[in-house]
């Protein structure tokens, strides 16, 4: 491929640079506009930090931030506790169930969140009867929403190691099933677990459909409500959430990169199309 790289024509280089610039403008202008819009004085000149101060001063916004962060934490924990042992167990003991588990995990892609909201009122009547009418009960629905993404991360991680051989080795040395799952398999699929967790956090911090239609005051819902009366504050909050999620996910690619490189060592990943 090196020969091709040196033969790369000037026209192609120009096209590439222009295209990348166009993409950069399309994706950056709205973000920069948010920064500008959230710091300018409406109907005047100069700058104000008031919308950003509102993020910590406005009581409704502040409590919704706490709610959303708690939701992100609870959803991630519940999702990992529910999904990881199940997926390992399927690989080890009930391979016959792998298609069923895959189907169920990917089903939320086919059944849109909006449809689940429409049908979930009876279930949530029971949930709020048993657990109270707290916004944190959204955790149950959010676990379903993050399932497809979490499933893919974990499935890829499990696919890159030989779970059965690992388990047999551990079992022949006297380990119980709990030890096999927690101390043998889990450390080996850690990159998959962290990426599932990061995606879950990002999704929960941005989720609007459930929160708005079930009337729970999470951060995205409150941002939406505020938008009608105070657009600059909503814009500031939106930008803050976007930056936070970006930092999380960018951190993930940098933290997980050594592990990933290892698991992808056998796969070609460059050069084919140059």
């Amino acid at each position, binding site marked *: *491929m090196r020969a091709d790289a040196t033969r790369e024509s000037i026209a192609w280089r120009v096209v590439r640079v222009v*295209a990348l610039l166009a*993409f950069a403008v399309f*994706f950056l202008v*709205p973000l*920069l*506009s*948010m920064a500008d*819009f959230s710091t300018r004085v409406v109907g005047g000149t100069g700058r104000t930090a008031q919308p950003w101060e509102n993020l910590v001063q406005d009581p409704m916004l502040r409590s919704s931030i706490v709610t959303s962060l708690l939701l992100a934490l609870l959803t991630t924990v519940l999702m990992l506790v*529910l999904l990881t042992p*199940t997926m390992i167990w399927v690989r080890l*003991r*009930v391979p016959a*169930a792998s298609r069923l*588990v895959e189907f*169920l995990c990917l*089903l939320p*892609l*086919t*059944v*849109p969140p*909006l*449809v*689940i909201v*429409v*049908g*979930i009122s*009876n*279930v949530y009547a029971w949930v709020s009867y048993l657990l109270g009418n707290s916004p944190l009960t959204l955790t149950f629905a959010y676990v*379903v929403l993050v399932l497809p*993404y979490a499933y893919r991360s974990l499935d890829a991680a499990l696919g890159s190691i030989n779970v059965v051989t690992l388990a047999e080795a551990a079992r022949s040395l006297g380990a119980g099933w709990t030890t096999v799952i927690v101390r043998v398999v889990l450390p080996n699929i850690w990159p998959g677990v962290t990426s599932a967790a990061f*995606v879950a956090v*990002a*999704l929960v911090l*941005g989720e*609007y*459909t459930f929160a708005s239609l079930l009337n729970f005051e999470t951060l*995205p819902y409150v*941002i*939406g409500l505020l*938008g009608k009366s105070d*657009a600059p504050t909503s*814009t500031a909050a*939106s*930008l803050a*959430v*976007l930056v936070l999620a970006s930092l999380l*996910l*960018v951190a993930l*690619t940098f933290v997980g*990169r050594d592990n990933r*490189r290892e698991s992808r060592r056998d*796969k*070609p*990943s*460059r*050069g*084919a*199309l*140059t």
Partner: protein
Amino acid sequence: MARVSRLAPWAGLLPFLVYLLVFLLVPTVTVVVGAFQGGHGFSTENITGLFEATALHTLWNSLVLSVSSAVVGAVLGAFLAYLVVTRPPTSLFRRTVTAVSGVLAQFGGVPLAFAFIATLGFSGVLTEALRSSFGLDIFGSGWLFGLRGLILVYSYFQIPLMVIVFLPALEGVRPQWREAAVNLGASTWQYWTRVAGPLLLPAFLGATLLLFANAFAAYATAALLVTQGNPIVPLLIRAALTSEVVLGRQNFAFALAFEMIVVVGVVMTLYTLLLRRTSRWLR
């Protein structure tokens, strides 16, 4: 250790299965059953309501929005993915684009609605800049808050989604295939039309279908941008949910949600079939 029966390991799946039964299957079945229920037991009045002018027009709008944003997203996203894949996997550029795409694709909802209001809204940054410096009015009569605006805004998360979905397929194209083609005397054009093109086509079409389903089911951005009228299906569902009775019908939200399941279900089935075909070659 005692010999356990063949069914015993299935018990380990119980927590997972019960959870999904309660929080995924029960709601879905509720929608499907509810779509065929009237005030007194079984009825098809909700379903026939889907074929009346308003509902059909709304469905048409939703299809137009989903197809346009999927095609725009697929073409531009595939191109961006190609620009990315020609860089080494460890390069800062490639890692940044992948990470940013991950964020923007998942994170469409609320922030993006406000990003575009801040950019192209009546007092948006770009609107005001063009108005004061060139006397140009890009706000018009508020196209941002209608169907055309939604197509533009949806492209903002469709392009990154395409990058994420299509990148693995591009990465799966082996350098050896090109080397083999070149050794056999193929030109760049022949390599693309005879080797890489046919290999990537199922992946490309599959990804386009995924983008379509993604746009068809998207709710948050539209809910925040469109405050007047209910031009697309998700917003009609919102109206049916919050005002209890639309068009004088109970359970109409169930019928609309059922319509959504059918459309997305068909598209996602096709997607899965195409994906299976892709994964045969690109591992």
